[in-house]
């Protein structure tokens, strides 16, 4: 139980430090401006290798986009930008 508390406290304090230092308004604007290509490069390699846009056709990417939105807990905006980027890059 003690171990748990220590780990919990570490995670919460770490998160709040990063959160407090990271939530200035310019960053918020930047986040909204992140391009599909950037979002793809930042997110699609977090669990598996970065998939090549050429791996599937446009229609297939729409289905995969929905599947990954769900699996990777992403917002609709993020996944829409990623899928549009992939569809222009494949």
């Amino acid at each position, binding site marked *: 139980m003690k*171990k*748990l508390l220590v*780990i*919990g406290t570490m*995670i919460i304090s*770490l*998160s709040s430090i*990063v*959160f407090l230092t*990271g*939530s*200035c308004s310019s*960053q*918020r604007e*930047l*986040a*909204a401006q992140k391009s599909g290509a950037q979002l793809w490069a*930042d*997110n699609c*390699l*977090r*669990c*598996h*290798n*970065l*998939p*090549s846009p050429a*791996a599937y*056709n446009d*229609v*297939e990417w*729409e*289905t*995969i986009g*929905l*599947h990954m*939105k*769900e*699996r*990777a*807990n*992403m*917002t*609709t*905006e*993020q996944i829409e930008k990623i899928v549009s980027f992939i569809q222009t890059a494949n």
Partner: protein
Amino acid sequence: MKKIIIVLSISMLFFGNSITAQDSKTGKTQFMVRGYGHAGLDYLKTESGTSLSYVGSSFAPIFLFKQGDRFIFETELEFVLQKNQLEIGLEYANLGYIINKYVMVRAGKFLLPFGTFMERLHPAWINRLSTKPLGFGHDGIAPASGIGIELRGAAPIGGSTINYSVYSTNGPQLKIGDDEPDEVGMLNFDNYIDNNNNKAIGGRIGFLPFFNSSMEVGVSYYTGKVGDKGSEYEDVKASLWAFDFSYVKQVSPLKGILDIKAQYNLNNVSDAYYTVNNDARDTSAVYTFTNSSNAYYAQLTYRPLMVGNAFLKNLELIGRYSQLNTPEGSLWESDINEATIGLNYWITWRQVVKVNYSFINSRGGHDAEDASLQKSNAFFVHWAIGF
């Protein structure tokens, strides 16, 4: 046999439809068949002997069914040979609907977002090593899936992102020795028929503090009553915690990608008295113990993706350490640790040859004859593909 024919004909239907989905005019409904499989050779050396065998013969097709922009049905079947018998498992089968930008609802059988390993990292083409870390899978202490309903989503907050899942399921079931007397007090996570009216609830919060989403920390909790309704175990409650960590980043000075993954699990089941019958001797004994288990793993992967050499680029080095401790005083008391090193070669982004070597130290476990320290080694060569 009949079952197989039915399943195969259904898959043919899906394959048929996926061809039409590729026509230039797209309809609102799209089907896809995806999935994965693997084959390999396993060598195990324990103090009592060695074994060498080819493995494989598993096939996991995934069917995705998208209707419009908001609705998805996903299901995965798993075909495996267990002692020459074909077994078919339903890994997951759920409906998902996007309510708004930040919320999605899912219902059915889904992989539980309890930590990240089972939901995100276990498929053979994603898992960097041929085996799961200790504590996951058969006789594990971490739940893999559940039947129920879930809300999930994400929201950007400043330059960070928060994601969440909250769910309610039928929950795990307490083993009271009906099938295997040695397992009294263990949790059965493959229990999909509810044994009581109490619904288990759980959730995970993930936090990606950095603007480039390279790091994620997550906390998960899952709790519920696990005893059969009307039995003396009715009020026995389980509380499960998981903490996960992920860091994936292209590091220029290292000319490659660094990938760190870790998860810590802690299970607590409230105290109970278990009666264990010994039929051979016609006796019975009553046991109790502090029912608390924990397991963790930490894994470091490095792939020199930015070097010029085409062969080196596809190589990957992996090291993983994992540990599992089950309750002291229980009939399944054990203390196991495992260190695994691996060298992978990526043929494509979803196809890999893994060469792994594990050093395992174990004490106890319900198959062990005594509690002495056993050292074993294992060597695996696996070829995995996602399609």
